[in-house]
Every structure is written in C-alpha cells, then in structure tokens.
C-alpha cells in the first residue's frame, strides 16, 4: 500500500521533469509553419502557463493532479483528462477482451501441454505459441487486414472492416453492438495471437512444477480420476503464479496495444498516445504517461489484495 503511494509520487515527479528537460519549444511546435508575432507567442506561453518560473509550474501541476486536472492539450485545445476519458472505453473494450481471451486460451493450452508433457500436442502448441509470440504485432495485423479485410486482391470476400470501431449509419442497440463486435474481430485476433504465448508458457512451467507434488500422489491414492486430480488439485495450485501476471497485464490494458490500435485505427488511448507523440503534444503525452503508470500501480495493488483470497498461505 505504502509502496504504491511512493511509486505514484515517483511517477508524478518523473512525469513533470521528463517533459521539461526534453529539447524543443512546445509553443514553436504548436505554431509550426505559421507566421506568428512575438506577442502571439508570449500570449500562448501565458495561456499554457509556460511563462511562469519552474517551481510555480510544478506547484500548479501538483495542485492540478489533485483535481484530476492534467492540463490542456496543445493539439486538441481540450482538457487532457476529458480526452483520456473519451478514449478510455474503446481501449478497455478491445484490450480487455483480448487479454481475457488470451489468458483463457493460454492457461487452457498450457495446462494441456504440461499434463501431456513431451507429447505431440505439447510440442505443437508450445511451438506455435512461441512462433506467434515472436511475430511483430503490426506485421501480423497488416497480414490479417490484407487477407481478411482486403480480400487478398479479390480472391476472398471482404470479411471484416479494415479499421475503425463502428460503421457510419448503423443505428439501434443490437445492430450497434454487432457492428462494433465485427470491427473488433481482427484487432482482437492480432492481440490474442501475439500475447497468449506468455500465459501458455507460465501455466505450463507452473503446472510442471506442481506435477512432482506429493499432494498429487495423495490425490491419486485416494482413487480420483486423473482429470479430477488435474482440475481439483494441480490446476488451482499452478494458477497462483499466473494471477500476478494477469493483473500486471490488466494494468497495461489502458496503455492499450499501441501498435494494434495504430494499425487498425482503433480510436483508443494507444491511438491517442501515438497521435500526441507525433505532434508532440506535451501536456497530452505527459497526462497519458501519468495515467498509464497509475493504472499499472493500481492493478498491482489490486493483485496484492486479491492474491490472499486465492492462496490461504499468504493470509495472516
């Protein structure tokens, strides 16, 4: 708990100073290519509070954070907090779905692989997972777009949209939901394919560690079927190390899969971050930086709180 607070403070400090020591004048970037007078530049500086001395800026920044005020975006001329709130849900939807599917698929395949260690199933599924894990996300995304959205130059029908989150002109609740789901298929597939390997490998090695456990001999001696020994005794113990991993990844959910969102033009936080970096829109980058870090810290804290519910040994 205290650790989380310290981490948050460290993030706040880094967030402020990192973006102050970056080279380049933000006001010059904003007015790039346009004829502006010195007075106009000064006015802009005043507007964004960049004319004040550094300690004063830091104080404003800290007070702002307390009110969830992350400053104003140069590019959108809108409060950063508002922009983040607006883009948060698409990301949670996409990356959340992807993470849940990847975790379930990985844990299930990992369990199968460990239970039949060294079998064809084990070698095949572990090999495929590792291959996909090593594939660049954007490349896989582009291939999927070419094949399933582009129709491979007319060979295949256009099964899925190439990007975006919704088609224009779709009205009504159910059609809307189906439309978004239709748009989600390719980005979610890309994400799952690339990340499920880590769940598979962790579950596999964790279960292999448990397989030598004496309590499993006890369970078999009691006359339990192998499937029940696995499900009731080995898996619950082997799942424990993966809980931490899942929560760590959930913390990363809001940071989104920047690459996936960029490839599929998904209007989420990853896309927002990518856009902000291109300008560069310093208040927005800084706000996103703090928000991403805070959510990782928050999920870690949550993992620490949930873990004792699952493992009686760490309860006091």
């Amino acid at each position: 708990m205290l650790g989380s607070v310290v981490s948050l403070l460290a993030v706040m400090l880094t967030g402020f100073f990192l973006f102050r020591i970056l080279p380049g004048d933000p006001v010059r970037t904003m007015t790039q290519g346009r004829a502006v007078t010195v007075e106009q530049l000064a006015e802009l500086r005043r507007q964004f509070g960049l004319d004040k001395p550094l300690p004063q800026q830091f104080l404003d920044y800290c007070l702002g954070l307390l009110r969830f005020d992350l400053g104003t975006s140069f590019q959108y001329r809108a409060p950063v907090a508002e922009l983040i709130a607006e883009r948060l849900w698409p990301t949670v939807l996409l990356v959340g779905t992807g993470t849940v599917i990847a975790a379930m698929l990985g844990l299930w395949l990992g369990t199968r692989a460990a239970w039949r260690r060294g079998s064809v199933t084990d070698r095949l599924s572990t090999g495929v997972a590792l291959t996909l894990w090593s594939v660049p996300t954007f490349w896989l995304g582009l291939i999927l777009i070419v094949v399933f959205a582009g129709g491979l130059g007319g060979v295949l029908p256009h099964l899925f949209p190439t990007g975006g989150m919704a088609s224009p002109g779709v009205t009504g609740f159910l059609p809307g939901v189906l439309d978004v789901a239709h748009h989600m298929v390719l980005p979610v597939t890309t994400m799952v394919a690339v990340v499920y390997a880590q769940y598979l490998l962790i579950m596999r090695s964790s279960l292999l560690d448990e397989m030598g456990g004496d309590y499993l001999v006890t369970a078999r001696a009691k006359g339990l079927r192998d499937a029940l020994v696995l499900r009731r005794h080995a898996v619950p113990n082997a799942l424990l190390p993966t809980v931490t991993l899942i929560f760590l990844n959930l913390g990363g959910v809001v940071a989104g899969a920047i690459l996936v969102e960029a490839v599929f033009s998904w209007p989420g936080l990853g896309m927002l971050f990518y856009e902000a970096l291109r300008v560069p829109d310093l208040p927005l980058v800084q706000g996103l930086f703090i928000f991403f870090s805070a959510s990782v810290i928050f999920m870690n804290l949550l993992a620490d709180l949930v873990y004792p519910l699952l493992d009686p040994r760490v309860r006091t």
Partner: protein
Amino acid sequence: MNYLEVQDLTVSYRTAAGELPAVRGVDLAVAPGSKVGIAGESGCGKSTVALALLRLLPASARMGGRILLDGEDVLTMRWGRLRAVRWAGASIVFQGAMHSLNAVHRIGDQIAEPILLHENATPAAAARRAGELLEQVGLPARRAAAYPHELSGGQRQRVMIAMALACGPRLIVADEPTTALDVMIQAQILRLIDQLVGEHGISMLMISHDLSVLADTCDRLAVMYAGRVVEEGPADQVFRSARHPYGAALGAAFPTIGDPASRRSPRGLPGDPPDPAAMPAGCAFGPRCPVAEPRCAETDPVLWPAGPDRAAACVRVLSDEQARGAGVPAGGAAPAEQVAAHPEKEGRTP
C-alpha cells in the same frame, strides 16, 4: 489368507542411462490385523514398494511380479477397479504431511474427499464424518476449516491419519509417518497409529529407516537393502539379534540410552548403498560388509531360513544352518518356504 501378499515384486525405472532396478524381487505378506515393518536406508526401495502397492509410481516405472490385495492382483487390475481399491481397500499415511496435503484446500474437505468418492455420501454426511475422524485422532472437529499451514507438523500428521481411516480400509500403509517430527511428537503419533489400528483391526505395513520405531510397533520386520529383503522375522528378534550383517549394523546404529559404551563408540556403517546402475558382483552388501569373505563376491545369496520363523540372505547364515544340519526348520516362515520351493534361485550369480 494374507490380506496383502507381495510375490517377487520387481520395479525398475526407465532413465536416459537405461533401466535402473529399484526393487529386485521382494516377497512380503501381511496377515489380517498384523503389523509388518520394512526397514532400510534411503534409496533401498522401501518407499517404492509402498507406492507400488497401489500402482502410484510414475509412468517411467516398470513393475513385475504380483501384488495380491485380498486375493486380487493390483498389477493386472483394470483402471476402474484400481481406483475403487485405492483408499477404500488400502490407504496410505505419507511422510511429510506438509507436502502430502493440498495447501489450498481446507483439511476437512481433504478428509471428506475420499468419502464422497467411494461411499456415495452426501456432502453434509461426509463433512460430519470428517469431523468425527478429526476427533478420533485428537483434533477438535472445528479444525476442519483450517488449512494445512495453520497446523503444526504433528497435527498435520494426525490429519493424514484421519484421512487414511476415512473409508475404513483393511490395510494402512504408513510410509515414514514420523520422520519429519520431533521425538516427543513421534512417540505420540506412533501411539495414536498403534491404538487406532488396533481398535479397528486394520492391518498395517509400516515403512521407516528407524529400526527401533518399527521394533516397537510391528509384529514382524523385514530389512531391505539395495532393492531386496535381506532379513525377515519377528520384530524383536530382528531388532535385537539380526542374522544378516546389514540388519545387525542397522540395529546397532541406535545407541542404547544410558549405556556409556555405546556413547563412546557410536557404531555406524561406513560407505553408501550401491548405485543401482552398477551393482557389485555377488552379494550387494559385500563391499560394505564388515565380515565379508571371498565367496561373497561370487554368490548372490537369497533369503534362507535362519532359525524358527526367520530368514536372512547371507551365505554365512546359509552355511551356519547347513552345518547345524537344520535344512528347512519345521515351523518354516512363509519366505523361507518360498526359498525352499525355488531352490534354483539359490546362489544365482549376475
């Protein structure tokens, strides 16, 4: 008829280095209501025998011989029948209850699990029975809600015993049940096992490296060395006057309390048991034997009658008995009869 009868049991493990023999022809018999002990150093195959009884060895193990449990051969049983026999026909008290209990399940659920599996009981009835079993082993029934790590080592072993009694088995295999415990708790647990086994008329096979523990608890005793039984007989006789030099060394390894002589010269056995990948020629115990003779490197002795109701696998015992012209004693023990019935086994050389 014996409830458990093990005939010429062999177990070998397939490894990268080839087949390693762990058990090389063991005969054992446990009569209903009797208590038999198996003693030996780590690695002599005694725990392998225990696990083999219910076919709990890993897939890399290959078994031969026969294990008759109530007349049925465990080694040729179908899976369904084997699962039904496990725990209900014979249960096991494992060593080190910390690891033999599942850390994330409540102990009450772990005791109730075999009851639900074998007896068609309702969950409530199984939970009630688990509570009764806990009371029987001296723990309050409300401890059923505890997790293994919340109990002391002795309490955990009591839970293991309660679990072993859950389905009313006719045989309990106790594999080093007191090894992980301190001496005071050891005595308590042994007394508890002794009392419960006696009350329920259960047969017991107890395995330990501690000959004195076995001599205290058991009626008969078998000493194992390098995968074979080298001495067999009534517990107190084997403990006090072993005929096999290994049995004698094992018995002498425990100091006599209050005897200054044994304190000043502690007796142990130098050396290690042989590597199963490279068994010595002749008697497996030869290289460590304090009284080895040249012929020990040539002859691999088998169990031979060594007095009334006793047997030992040592060429010296064989010649002693022959010198006395005893041959097969009138009241020959089961293993001794077996030796007599298979004279071709005698003196086999690898």
